[in-house]
């Protein structure tokens, strides 16, 4: 890449907890090997495989039974330790986190909801409120900003913070917030990312009844694609300006050069059929980065493996890049759809691609759907990209794209 501007925002720390295992190295190795990380699900629901983190997660006494919080803490600790920016004043440290719906455990269904179901099939909400008002963990666990607050406390971050909740675009949005805070000079360092786990009965059931989960396995951009594999995970990045990273000799893994967002303004669950919002989001990210479409080598697609979603994104990519077939793939076939965490896990994958010089393969993809005008990287490709876009699109139509540029140390 060309000389890095002093005020460029760069990535100096990464953390991940995914179906590949705990840690960024586990994710990198899985992507390099095109490894399918799903495991069989043996519950009562018609869900054949899930992308569950296989390693034991360090539990947290303040967050009992809150697996998604544990995922966030593990990834954040890894990213923060790697960045090693201990001298930044606390009021100059920012935290932005993307999160999703909290898990509802079978115990909560049984003890919090079921007893208050009347004979008429209606809930006695007042009784439910009285019951939950006792000092029980469940209601507190459902407060989305709790994990953000805990991360602020752990990393002594008293600067700007926020909790994004924009479905599957949440983590990418949070990373974008960190970029903006650094550009504005509101902070000197930002811990950004996202976390989620919907691998619990009610979470999976929600996607089953929506028809979003594949009854077999995720096959992105394939003519037989029929949905995604549910995953869980967390991804975290430490962002700071190039000047401070260089001053303390930190490794710069990549530059976060731009962020773009848009809304489909179309439908609660279905994407715009032509991918208009997706295209606008990518164009905005490039504009924010000051880069032309011609500079992009690879798009880490949202690529859920749903019939409508892959089609809309492919059309958007084709319009943006024209006749130049830019390489695309998605890591969801490998580690599953981590829902609110997806934008962060895939941001980590994008930075890994830039830093180590490879294009992740598209695990689960067999043949290219002839109706999709894209160049799918079927298996991991030994090619060093210079500019990578990472797409995240959510229910409600919120879209977010991050633009990463290869760092000077790679």
């Amino acid at each position, binding site marked *: 890449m060309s000389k890095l501007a002093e005020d460029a925002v760069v990535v100096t720390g990464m953390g991940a907890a995914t179906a590949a295992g705990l840690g960024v190295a586990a994710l990198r190795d899985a992507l390099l090997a095109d490894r399918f990380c799903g495991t069989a699900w043996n*519950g*009562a*629901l018609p869900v054949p495989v899930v992308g569950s983190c296989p390693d034991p997660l360090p539990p947290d006494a303040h967050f009992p039974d809150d697996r998604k919080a544990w995922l966030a803490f593990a990834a954040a600790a890894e990213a923060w330790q790697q960045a090693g920016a201990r001298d930044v004043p606390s009021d100059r440290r920012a935290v932005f986190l993307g999160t999703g*719906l*909290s898990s509802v455990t*079978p115990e909560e*269904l*049984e003890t919090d909801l*079921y007893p208050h179901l009347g004979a008429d*099939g*209606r*809930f006695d*909400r007042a009784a*439910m*409120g*009285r019951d*939950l*008002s006792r000092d029980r963990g469940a209601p507190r666990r*459902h*407060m*989305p*900003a709790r994990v*953000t607050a805990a991360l602020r406390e752990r990393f002594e971050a008293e600067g700007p*913070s*926020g*909790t994004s*909740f*924009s*479905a599957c675009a949440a983590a990418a*949005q949070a990373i974008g917030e960190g970029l903006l805070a650094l550009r*504005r*000079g509101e902070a000197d360092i930002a811990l950004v990312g996202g976390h989620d786990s919907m691998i619990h*009965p009610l979470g999976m*059931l929600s*996607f089953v*009844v*929506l028809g979003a989960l594949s009854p077999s396995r995720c096959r992105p951009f394939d003519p037989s694609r029929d949905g995604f594999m549910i995953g869980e995970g967390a991804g975290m990045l430490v962002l700071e300006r190039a000047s401070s990273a260089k001053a303390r000799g930190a490794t710069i893994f990549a530059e976060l050069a731009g962020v773009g*967002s*848009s*809304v489909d*303004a*179309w*439908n*609660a*669950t279905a994407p715009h059929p032509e991918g*208009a919002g997706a*295209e*606008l989001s990518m*164009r*905005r990210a490039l*504009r*924010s*980065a000051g880069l032309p479409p011609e500079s992009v080598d690879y798009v880490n697609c949202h690529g859920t493996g749903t019939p409508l979603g892959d089609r809309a994104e492919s059309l958007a990519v084709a*319009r*943006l890049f*024209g006749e130049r077939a830019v390489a695309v793939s998605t890591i969801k076939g490998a580690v599953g759809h981590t829902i609110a965490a997806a934008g962060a896990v895939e941001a980590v994958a994008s930075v890994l691609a830039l830093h180590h010089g490879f294009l992740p393969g598209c695990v689960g993809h067999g043949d290219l759907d002839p109706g999709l005008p894209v160049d799918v990287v079927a298996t991991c490709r030994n090619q060093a990209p210079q500019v990578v876009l990472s797409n995240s699109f959510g*229910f*409600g*139509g*919120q879209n977010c794209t991050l633009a990463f540029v290869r760092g000077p140390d790679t």
Partner: protein
Amino acid sequence: MTPMTPMTPPYTPAARRPVKVAAWSLFCPAGIGEAGLQGGQPGKVPAFKARAWVKDRKSLKLMGRSVQLGVAAVRAVLDGVPGWDEVPPSRRGIFVGASPQLGDPDDLSYALKAASPTGTFDLQKFAEDGIDLIHPLWLVRGLSNNVVGFASAFHDLQGVNANYCDGRLSGWNALTEGYAAVAEGRADIVVAGGADAFVGADELLGVPCGEAAAFVVFQAADGGEDLEMGDCPELTDVESTLGYLGAAAAPVAWVRRFAGGAAQDS
């Protein structure tokens, strides 16, 4: 290739432009619009009829109470800005503070009944027999970003956006980031505010509760004075009057301060 969407150059601090409030809307237990600017007590928004604000009945069925309030307040605030629809859709932003709803428990009632034929909850039966009895959009109904989703679709707001879940500060984050989006040239018009509904949760939360939605439209004030956002209002003041308002607390307090102050000034 389609032509580039009109966009302003990347943000630089020097390129900041002044911002004005083009309109505000307020739905709170004290009333709707100017009636809501003073007084009030915890509880529901008086005389609020969602059907009067949301004509699409199919969408209305998918909205919880807080989403209904939010979508209504977005419509009300845009109604107060002549010519807002002349701004290209890609330059119309939306920033919202809202709490997740965890779905409507009533959507699970049939499945829970099916899971307990002997009077004891059985998770296996819940999964086997209850699954077909759950509304397909149960998950979607509980999403925190439903105000963004529905309001953007109704008003073709395709621009920069965010949805925040930071408890009582959610709406404040929406206001400040919405303001910044216009100031930094990332949007020409932004709808920003918050919505929440906690009526009936008094015992759960241990405080009197209310419901509310408040939104403002930020617009570039070309050649005019820049809006002074000020600090986040003291939320205990408004909540001691109107009850716990969650993500709507800051926008309600800010609008009451802004519009109440403006009324006094005039």
